[in-house]
């Protein structure tokens, strides 16, 4: 167990070294010339009102430009709800809850 932990820590240190090196190479934080601020975000900022009719650009992206993603977001939530119900819900007969039958604690 100890050796495994030491290995994991060494791996994490290597990963940290990689992270530092790559952080140094990233575009500078907060600069308006970053590749992130390209024609994509320009259109979201300047045309959102004209093309979708809402003032909040984040809403325009979430519910219009990338509405397909939001559909899957609600589906993720739905999946989680179904999975929780399948695990915990007790139905009318007592024995049917997921693992009352062979619980290891009596």
């Amino acid at each position, binding site marked *: 167990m100890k050796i495994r932990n030491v290995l994991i820590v060494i791996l994490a240190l290597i990963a940290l070294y990689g992270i530092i090196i790559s952080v140094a190479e990233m575009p500078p934080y907060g600069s308006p010339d970053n590749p992130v601020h390209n024609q994509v975000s320009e259109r979201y900022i300047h045309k959102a009102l004209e093309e979708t*009719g809402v003032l909040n650009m984040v*809403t325009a992206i979430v519910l219009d430009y990338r509405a397909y993603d939001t559909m899957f977001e*609600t589906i993720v939530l739905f999946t989680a709800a179904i999975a*929780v119900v399948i695990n915990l*819900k007790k139905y009318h007969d007592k024995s049917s809850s997921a693992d009352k039958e062979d619980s290891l604690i009596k």
Partner: protein
Amino acid sequence: MKDYILKRIVAVILPFMCMYGFYVILHGASSPGGSFAGGIIVALSFIVFSTIYGLDEGRRILPESVLVWTESFGTLWYGLLGLIGIFKGVPFLANLLAGFKPGTPGSLFSGGLIPLLTLGVGIRVASTMVTLFFTIKEE
């Protein structure tokens, strides 16, 4: 819980909390917030209610069948609104392209499809959160 003061305070606050949640949901188009945040606030009002008044009371206010229906149809609503685009001959989930009116910017029903989508997602998030809370609390 027997706490009288808590129950009274909650009884006064809760309607406003719920209303505030719907306010946030509906004003997602023009102010910060939106469907998810507002849905969580609406859900929180019910969660607070059933924490103070007990789970059975909460179940009485929001029966399981209502939760299951809103949960399923909140998501289905989104998809059906998307299908409008297909019926109009434009791609899935098209908004202004499908002939919806943009409305006045900043007003409640601006942005064509967006308020409808927000309402669906908000109700759906609220019901899911309440379902999660009830199911986990029951255990």
